[in-house]
């Protein structure tokens, strides 16, 4: 039950964030989607022992989240929720890869730990990029961007339907689960047979609903397009956004910024 509540809360909250009005929110969805994809692609292109060169990439999520007024605490919480998975797979690296790669003073650090840290960094960067994309663009924005980028229309339109009805159906499931829990004693009726019946009922209702929706839409002139009020315009600012960030990513990819900073500051102290 807690899971449903939290899922609902998450969807609703992310949805609300996407209605804010900031410079980031005003950008064209396409520019944000493309930049995020480039960001993720550059991140995963590093070899598995890279740590220091990944650090400058934090600039992207941090500055976009600040400009887009996405609370850091919320982002951190979302990342923590999914972290166990990355830890679970990554933790095998220190077990299998024990060659010493680096020395700090006298302690040697094995390649496994270095690649483990690298995995965690990649994980934080890629996940935060996704959350920032969705919370500054909104699902509708992403779908429209996809459609403009030549993703098949059927796919985009049914994605919009899907998103619209998730909220309705989750509420329905919520009350069904409450009803089941209230009638169950000692865990009876919580097994897969009853669940199958419940899901079947939900399915029948869903299909009925889809029929009614389709009829209603036909009456109002639906011909396979969904029209949205908010116009999408690709302005010079959008092009600048893509070009500026992409060149920053390339710069971070090929120049070891932390190394240079370290050298400069080290030189100052000497």
């Amino acid at each position, binding site marked *: 039950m807690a899971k449903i509540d939290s899922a609902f809360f998450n*969807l609703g909250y992310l949805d609300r964030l996407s209605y804010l009005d900031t410079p980031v929110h005003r950008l064209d969805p396409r520019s944000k989607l493309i930049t*995020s994809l480039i960001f*993720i692609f550059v991140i*995963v*292109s590093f*070899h*598995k022992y890279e740590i*220091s060169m990944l650090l*400058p990439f934090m600039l992207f999520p941090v500055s976009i*989240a*600040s*400009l887009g007024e996405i609370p*850091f605490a919320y982002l951190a919480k979302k990342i923590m929720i999914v972290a166990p998975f990355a830890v679970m*797979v*990554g933790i*095998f690296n220190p077990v*299998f*890869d*024990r*060659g010493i790669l*680096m*020395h*700090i*003073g006298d302690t040697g650090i094995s390649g496994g730990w270095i690649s483990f840290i690298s995995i965690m960094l990649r994980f934080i960067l*890629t996940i935060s990029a996704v959350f920032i994309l*969705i919370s500054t663009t909104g699902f509708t924005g992403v779908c429209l961007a996809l459609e403009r980028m030549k993703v098949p*229309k059927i*796919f985009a*339109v*049914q994605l919009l*339907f*899907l998103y619209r*009805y*998730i909220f*309705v*159906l989750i509420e329905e*499931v919520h009350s*069904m*689960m409450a009803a089941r829990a209230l009638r169950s004693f000692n865990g009876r009726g919580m*097994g*897969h047979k009853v*669940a199958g*019946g419940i*899901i*079947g009922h*939900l*399915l*029948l209702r*869903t*299909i009925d609903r*889809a*029929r009614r929706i*389709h009829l209603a839409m036909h009456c109002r002139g639906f*011909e*396979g397009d969904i029209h949205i009020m908010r116009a999408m315009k690709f302005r010079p600012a959008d092009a600048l956004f893509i070009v500026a960030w992409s060149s920053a990513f390339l710069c971070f990819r090929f120049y070891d910024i932390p190394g*240079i*900073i*370290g050298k400069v*500051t*080290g030189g100052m102290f000497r």
Partner: protein
Amino acid sequence: MHMADALLSPGVGGAMWAASGAAIAYSTKKIKDGLDDKKVPLMGVLGAFIFAAQMINFTIPGTGSSGHLGGGMILAVLLGPHAAFLVMASVLLVQALFFADGGLLALGCNMFNLGFFPAFIAYPFIYRPIAGAVRSSGRITAGSIVSVLLGLQLGAFFVVLETVFSGVSELPFRSFVLMMQPIHLAIGLVEGLVTAAVLNFIHKAEPLLLDGGIAQRGVPGFRKIIIGLLLVTTVTAGVLSWFASKNPDGLEWAMFRVSGREELKNSGGSIHSFFEELQGKISFLPDYDFTSDKKGDEKDPHTIQKVESRSTVDGGRSLSGIMGGCITILLIFFIGFILKKKRK
């Protein structure tokens, strides 16, 4: 299990995206050809249904834990393979965006693992022949359990392949397979049971619904998709791998495969000792310890090179690197702080 961005290499991620993208394009074309636009709202609402149905959990007999539905097979039975694949892909997209299950690059892998296999393999080749044209609840049950099981096994196996080919995780092929397949056998059994319960319910309540898939006879041009997918995948993988891997992942993987197989075959023991002896005699590369359990990973030539080049880094320089890293992070958060201040 969802594949994650952090474990992917660009080559594998891009190749799987190309495969899933091709499957999306093919499926939409098929739907457009045969359509009735009635199906589009139905598809969307069923996607939301799968999403909601995944939240109905149930206790798994014999254990304390609870499971939930995956949904790919129900979709395939209701909508047919093409629409089912599209709906599954959209459900995964929503999950990737809102719950960070996977990530955007890994989405291609996940669509393939969790959408392609149930819709295009398990449904037409297993469920349909077993459940047949004359449906009975026994046949439906058998069909859904076997097909869900197989679909999940294939999906899990591909997660392993994708992880190992990417080479970011050190998990060796053999132990990863031995871990993933049995877990997904259990998951698949439970999921199959629930799928059977749902389909039997529909069979009793409104049997015509199940014809959605069956009315579309055959899966024409199936061989064409496979060949197309293979082509796209290899081409993309080839092109991308120029950019991608300078590290020896492919080699490592091959080594795992080789050593893994040797160990599997020689449970008899005599061949094993023979190879061990042989290896001792011809060990012109003494550092390649093929038979050891650690698979000689850190003794890989490239890694050695890296070890050397890294370990020649004196303490002073690596210290300056760490310092530089800390300063970078501080700078970034300072910038973020300033930007935030400016907004207010």
